[in-house]
């Protein structure tokens, strides 16, 4: 590496850090993102200026394929599908690391003439990268609902199998470092780590997926940093490590918001899998259903309405209609606020993004701690496609798999109207007692058309 390239790298990661600092505030975030992107551009150009670069055709080919695949998919993806898109982009990053490590192995005859630390760093990157690639693809499949969101477990075999896979991967690594140069070793390592990625993520329930994506994001960062050590490339080390550190913090924050510990999530299943079925007695409990007209009247005579948006609203793309409804209510002098659970949607902040898209004023978005004390003064709580985050069992029923998870205390408001397609359980697969509360009435149907009907009724009033 020449000094010139090294200096450009320093400029690049100064821009990364400055850009990330920008991402900490809504005002500076857009600029921050572009500053980081410029940093990335400089880092790429610097690398291409490294003396002795060749194989230009192949490089252009690779970049072109990546751009052709990446740009349209990033442009077209719906806002609701963002989490799985992040999972996918994260996965390919991990995959890239694993592939580079594979090539390193092949082209150095199993690190024959390299110092041990290079072999160790490169193999570490290979294991983590492979786990991240396959794990992220499962996460994508679950969120995209290509794979069942329910935990898929092997029961008691789960932990031994995972431990065995990890051992196989590590054993391959140890043999390689000790001098093994058979191509089967590296393939065995990548395959074992890949299967480990699958078996670790498959048993995790869909509700925990954001935490997993965040964790895999941190993993990919670490694997990039390790690859940087192996390749003696400062840019990789710095950028990878920053992502590794930030991803760990973010993972922790998300897990805290859901009152789940990271080890418990990784150990698999929501509350261990079988507990998912224990939704209490399954006899048909009475549910009150209501109509759009009644809902409109009830809200029109309220003085305070709190909207509790959930993933159902996001899927139905109802945020604009909800905003319209809120405007009508505000015209009647009714206070409208939005209660945002930290993990509403499928990731922290996801719901804020969607509501901001519909021009909901920032001040009306209330975080959980702030709004929970206000439910007692709320006349109508309108729950739109949210389920698990409103389930009072999280506070009252120690046998519930989500016991201890912080919830929005919707059941404290004077009346509750739940907009929902049907009586199916939520993402965590648990029955919700809120629906059977005498104060609760259900408005069945697609969230968007239901809210649309309410808007019509409000206009007619």
């Amino acid at each position, binding site marked *: 590496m020449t000094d010139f390239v090294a200096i450009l790298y320093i400029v690049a990661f100064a821009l990364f850090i400055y850009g990330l600092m920008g991402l*900490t505030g809504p005002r500076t975030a857009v600029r921050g993102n572009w500053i980081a992107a410029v940093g990335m551009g400089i880092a790429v150009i610097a690398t291409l200026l490294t003396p002795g*670069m060749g194989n230009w055709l*192949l490089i252009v080919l*690779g970049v072109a394929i990546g751009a052709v695949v990446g740009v349209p998919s990033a442009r077209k993806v719906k806002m609701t599908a963002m989490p799985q898109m992040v999972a996918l982009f994260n996965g*390919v990053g991990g995959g890239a690391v694993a592939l580079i490590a594979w090539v390193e192995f092949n082209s150095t005859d199993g690190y024959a003439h390299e110092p041990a630390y290079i072999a160790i760093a490169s193999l570490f990157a290979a294991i983590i990268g492979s786990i991240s690639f396959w794990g992220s693809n499962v996460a994508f499949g679950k969120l995209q609902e290509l794979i069942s969101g329910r935990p898929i477990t092997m029961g008691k075999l789960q932990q031994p199998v995972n431990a065995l896979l990890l051992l196989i991967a590590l054993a391959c690594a140890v043999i390689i470092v000790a001098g093994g140069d058979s191509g089967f070793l590296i393939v065995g390592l990548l395959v074992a780590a890949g299967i480990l990625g699958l078996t670790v993520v498959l048993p995790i329930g869909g509700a925990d997926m954001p935490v997993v994506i*965040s964790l895999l994001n941190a993993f990919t960062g670490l694997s990039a940093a390790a690859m940087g050590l192996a390749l003696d490339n400062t840019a990789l080390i710095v950028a990878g490590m920053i992502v590794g*550190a930030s991803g760990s913090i973010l993972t922790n924050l998300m897990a805290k918001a859901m009152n789940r510990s990271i080890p418990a999530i990784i150990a698999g299943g929501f509350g261990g899998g079988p507990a998912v079925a224990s939704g209490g007695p399954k006899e048909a409990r009475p549910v009150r259903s209501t109509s759009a007209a009644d809902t409109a009247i009830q809200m029109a005579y309220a003085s305070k309405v709190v909207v509790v948006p959930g993933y159902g609203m996001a899927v139905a793309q109802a945020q604009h209609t909800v905003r319209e409804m809120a405007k009508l209510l505000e015209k009647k002098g009714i206070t409208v606020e939005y209660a945002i659970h930290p993990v509403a949607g499928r990731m922290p*902040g996801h719901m804020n993004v969607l509501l901001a898209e519909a021009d909901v004023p920032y001040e009306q978005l209330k975080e959980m701690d702030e709004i929970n004390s206000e439910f007692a003064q709320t006349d109508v709580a309108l729950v739109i496609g949210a389920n698990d985050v409103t389930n009072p069992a999280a506070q009252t029923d120690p046998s519930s798999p989500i016991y201890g998870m912080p919830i929005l205390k919707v059941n404290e408001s004077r009346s509750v109207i739940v907009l929902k397609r049907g009586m199916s359980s939520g993402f965590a697969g648990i029955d919700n007692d809120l629906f059977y509360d005498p104060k609760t009435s259900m408005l069945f149907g697609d969230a968007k058309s239901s809210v649309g009907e309410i808007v019509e009724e409000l206009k007619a009033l």
Partner: protein
Amino acid sequence: MSPLVQNLAVLVLAGFVGFAVISKVPNTLHTPLMSGTNAIHGIVLLGGLVVLGLGVDGVFNKILLVIAIAFGTINVVGGFLVTDRMLSMFKAKKPAPGEEEEK
């Protein structure tokens, strides 16, 4: 000081920078932030560029690296674009007409 030790020093310091910068982000921006950091670890693209550009033997290795570069590019380009789309939702309510509007 060997290159390993130098690199380890950089590694440790970068870790602390990551902690310091990130711990101040408001809840609302967590998803965009995750997406932004996701884009940054697309830096692995450089690894692919270096290894391929400085020369490897064998068609198989070259194929692997082209795939790795394609993956890295998807990570970088997709990551920054998606982050930008998320963040544009938080923009001030009166953007200059015609500018930054989606397509």
